[in-house]
């Protein structure tokens, strides 16, 4: 027995699920889109970062510090850190959603990676600022 497309329900969500308010979180499109925008940013920032590090291969401490302290390098480094951790959180979120099926563990991990990412970004930005401002 074949099913015609017109016979399919328009809404595939279970009515009970809808009634409980456990439908989609409505963040899917912005998650997908932000992941792509940060990806494009990281193509540029990532290549720039590799070149920066290769240029510092044999630099002594003072040279490395002076290089990071240059305004453009400092700005791009902070941009790189923010974008990298943002993109990492979005990606890890998908992995956790796919493989962690115990609800409390899933939520714990999601919150934990966000806390860790925010702290890392703040610590990284502060480090770059200290270097750039000579503090």
């Amino acid at each position: 027995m074949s099913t015609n497309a017109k016979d399919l329900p328009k809404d595939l969500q279970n009515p009970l699920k809808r009634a409980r308010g456990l439908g989609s979180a409505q963040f899917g499109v912005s998650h997908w889109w932000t992941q792509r925008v940060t990806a494009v940013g990281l193509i540029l920032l990532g290549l720039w970062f590799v070149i920066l590090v290769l240029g510092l291969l044999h630099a002594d401490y003072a040279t490395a510090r002076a290089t990071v302290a240059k305004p453009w390098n400092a700005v791009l480094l902070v941009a790189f850190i923010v974008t990298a951790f943002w993109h990492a959180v979005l990606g890890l979120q998908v992995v956790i959603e796919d493989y962690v099926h115990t609800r409390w563990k899933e939520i714990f991990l999601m919150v934990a990676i966000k806390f860790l990412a925010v702290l890392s970004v703040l610590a990284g930005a502060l480090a770059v600022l200290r270097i750039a401002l000579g503090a």
Partner: protein
Amino acid sequence: MAQTQRPLSPHLQIYKWQVQMVTSILHRATGIALAVGTLMVLWGLLSLAAGEDAFNQFKVCTGSPLGMILMIGWTWSLFYHLCNGIRHLVQDAGAGYAIAQFVRSSWLSIIVSIVLTLLVWAYVLTAGGAA
């Protein structure tokens, strides 16, 4: 989860290995590796801000055999995720979905990422060792 007994779709070991599967799995694996690698970048910056002793300690760790292996791994992870990420962005734009193109671009991601890793490490090693 799993309060209902739904039929499961066949899992990985059922399928014959194809390069498109490998690129997809590697994209995830390298993504997770790079998430850990960003913490390494953070350590480098924090040690640079903290002072010369802390930075030298960081350089000793990254220059150690284990550190070098990790650095090579992260270099390849970065280039692979970069190449395959660009491939995914092209596919998101709707291009490259014919099976032949899909397979060819999979191989391209793998080969270009290995070539870039070799080039970078050839430069690092001929420039006289890491760190």
